[in-house]
């Protein structure tokens, strides 16, 4: 009986005996916990996120400073989804980048660059001031580029496609000083045009003749010289909603083979971001003008003419919907903060192409609504719905900003 009584109350006795003071009561709780300690462990999800955070896992996969990486997208507008391998070394003496990518639509690009001195950082803001030289080379094969004809009156019904293949090599000596970068691109371009492979529409050479489409039948190699100057105060690291980017360039394409397609081209691209309501809203404005002037007796080949239409210009129209020797584009976006990661946008695009800027009369236009997801105003995902263009409503999904 004694044993039973004692046994039955042993636990209570031990606890009770430990609780004659507050300190003892608390100690008893701690001793009870000490008998059942469990090592702290991250769950699988937390462990993965920790690797992403601390080991910069995504960056090490897609954009490491040194080593092999995966490349996703960025092949060209209209290329569709694609990707491929890459290698890069971002260092002090030099930056070297090389990658190749192919898309589901059969697009292919291989490119490489070497920059002296190196930037060592992806953060433009930390790049050193001073001179630099960059060598860039590219080979691309774009088999389904859309073409609707030249000029502002081209018809949507005339949609065709052509294949564009080119090799491009350039050397760029330049200098950076604060917001200002100036330099000159010295290049060699060797393009070729062929029949398009998109069977949903005719090939360009099936419905257009070379008299309508300069450069359709013959493509020379070009010497390219392009002085440029860029002034950029817009910096997401400092203020993601204020500042400007202004770029002015003059490009001379010199026909090295046929003496038919030499021309000069001016490009002015002005972007201004005006914040208001304590930087929660932004008025984003862009004006782009491009004008090509062929040499005496020459013409500007269609594949080097400026284009409008698509996710970055006239969003109410298909990619490359309009092309001519000159183009004018005006874009305005009212962007507002929805939360830390999402931004809304109401936009209006207007623009047109023409032989000369002075010939541009009636402007095409569209307007719409968009949502952008990203961090600090940089869109990693963009959904735009464009109305108002005369060719119907268009939904656009992209993984970068419009401008």
């Amino acid at each position, binding site marked *: 009986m*004694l044993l039973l009584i004692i046994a039955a109350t042993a636990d209570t006795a031990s606890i009770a005996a430990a609780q*004659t003071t507050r300190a003892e009561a608390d*100690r008893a709780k701690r001793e009870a916990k000490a008998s059942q300690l469990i090592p702290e462990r991250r769950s699988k999800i937390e462990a993965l996120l920790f690797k992403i955070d601390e080991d910069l896992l995504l960056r090490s996969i897609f954009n490491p400073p040194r080593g092999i990486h995966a490349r996703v997208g960025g092949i060209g507008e209209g290329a569709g989804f694609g990707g491929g391998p890459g290698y890069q070394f971002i260092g002090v003496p030099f930056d070297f980048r090389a990658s190749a990518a192919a898309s589901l639509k059969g697009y292919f690009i291989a490119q490489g660059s070497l920059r002296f001195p190196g930037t060592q950082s992806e953060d433009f803001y930390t790049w050193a001031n001073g001179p630099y030289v960059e060598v860039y080379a590219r080979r691309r094969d774009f088999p389904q580029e859309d073409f609707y004809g030249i000029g502002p009156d081209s018809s949507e019904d005339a949609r065709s496609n052509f294949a564009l293949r080119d090799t491009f090599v350039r050397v760029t000596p330049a200098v950076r000083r604060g917001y200002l970068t100036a330099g000159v691109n010295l290049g060699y371009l060797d393009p070729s045009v062929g029949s398009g492979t998109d069977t949903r529409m005719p090939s360009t050479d099936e419905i257009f003749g070379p008299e309508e489409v300069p450069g359709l039948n013959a493509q020379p190699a070009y010497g390219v010289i392009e002085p440029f100057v860029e002034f950029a105060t817009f910096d997401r690291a400092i203020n993601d909603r204020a500042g400007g980017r202004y770029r002015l360039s003059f490009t001379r394409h010199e026909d090295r083979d046929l003496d038919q397609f030499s021309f000069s081209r001016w490009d002015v691209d002005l972007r201004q971001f005006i914040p208001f309501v*304590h930087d929660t809203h932004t008025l984003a404005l862009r004006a782009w003008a491009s004008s090509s002037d062929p040499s005496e007796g020459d013409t500007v080949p269609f594949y080097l003419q400026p284009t409008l239409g698509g996710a970055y210009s006239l969003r109410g129209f298909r990619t490359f919907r309009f092309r001519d020797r000159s183009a004018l584009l005006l874009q305005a976006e009212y962007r507002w903060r929805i939360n830390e990661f999402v931004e809304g946008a109401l936009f209006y695009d207007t623009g047109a192409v023409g032989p000369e800027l002075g010939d541009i009369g009636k402007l095409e236009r569209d307007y719409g609504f968009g949502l952008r997801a990203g961090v600090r105003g940089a869109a990693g995902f963009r959904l735009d719905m464009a109305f108002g263009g005369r060719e119907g409503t268009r939904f656009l999904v992209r993984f970068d900003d419009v401008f």
Partner: protein
Amino acid sequence: MSSDRLRAAAAAVAAAVIATGIGVALAAQSARLSLRFFPDDPILRDDDAALDASGIKERELSETYDFLLNTFGSPADRAPIRASNVNTLDEVPDSTWFTNRIGIRDLPVAEIVRGPNKFERLEAQDWIVVRGKSPGGFQAGFRAEHPGDPGQVYQLEVDPVDHPQLATGAELIGTLIYHALGYFVEDVYLVRVDPARITIADKATIRDASGERRFNQRDLEAVLRQAARDREGRVYMSATRFHEGLPAGNFEYHGTRTDDPNDIHPHEHRRELRANRVFCAWLAHDDSRAINTLTLLVAANGRKHVRHYMYDFGAILGSATRFAEPATSNHETYLDKNASLAALASFGFAVPRYLRVARADGPPSAGAFDSTSFDPVRWKPNYPNPAFSNLRPDDAFWGARLVSRFSDAAIRAIVDQVKFDDPAAAEHISRVLIERRDAIARVWLNDVNPIVDPKLAADGTLTFTNAALAARAATPGRGYTVSWARFDNASGDAAAALETQEVTEPRAAAPASLLSSADFVVATIRAHHADHPSWDQPVLVYFRRTGSGWQTVGIVRLP
């Protein structure tokens, strides 16, 4: 009866007696178990270093996981219970989390501005970089040593070019205030460094997305290019000196560490963590998340225990470390549902109220720190913090009392430690801190019955203080109602009120008949003010008879 039988009967009787004795003893222990107040109440120190915790392993949190968990999950107990680590006086005892400082005594200004620092001043001209900052770090900087403190690693961080002394000033001010409040914080010094006197150790490394590599001159230049400088070309830097101990990772604002035997109070129910919401609101510390905490495994008395630190104050007071804080910070969480829906549905034309008020942000060194848009109750961290979400009026009252104990002079002295080159910045930050302090006092000192420090003298005179009046957060009210009763500590029951008194001053006299016969008495005190209905909530104050008079052993402000 044979002798055997006699022996058996005697044994049975003895057993019964022993059993009865044990039963009686256990019954007595059980009675003690139900005591409302233990003999050592109120405890002033929670001995949460009592057991050896040397078995714990470092566990750093994932920033993203912490965000997702607290934004979309419910990791904490949300029961609206009283903070579990307060003592019977409703105060936070000292522990490995908190040391009462300004809350229990008048801290000399000199002590406040010294903070946790080992040195009064850090005389360091030469710095040797030993390591780059970890990849996750947002503010530019590196880790370095200086010859005057051999073997000690400091974390040096810079100010943004256009905002000199913004982040470094915030770091120091936050450190000094949090230390005075009672938290553990690392040493922080402000230094101005001639870039020419920074060198790089041969073995210095930095980690990036491709792994470890040597820290080189270009890395140093990249940091310096992002750094504000004074007129003499020196770089403003904060130098954080890490305390001795083995890093054990971050602590979370919910649950307990499963590998720490001393950690028995769920963090979401710790008062100093709940009330940290008050301090964060005061200082615009929206970055107050688990990722900005530290724990160190420290040795004492032959065993090891975890010490809990608040860390990284560079993003307070309108600083976002690399730029001024966006206007939405401290007003909306990252994924604020209501604000998002309103913004989406209105195409951004429904501008929140806090953006419509005229804000008086300070000069560049002061950042986006204002008092005009400040509403202590509506203040929000970057994402939900479960301890903050559990804040009750009694927690907030405790926090507001601490905030209100920072005098104007103390606040100005703290801000002056930054030695702002722009005097307007010092003036702005001081003024806004004072105005926000007063706003906090007005709200949270009046949200409960604000009587504090009750004492019962041997002659039966009861005195107490009205904290709201003391902080000038309220005008005098109509007076107080005090009811007296006997209290049974064993059962936890109070007898019917023996006497009720109406007084206009915080003073009353206990009934002599009660004091002569009771070991415990309880006074129920209500305050009355037409503008503050919360004052009417009864505060129960328990007194225990001692050899020389009466000891205050319990205060219940909110059950």
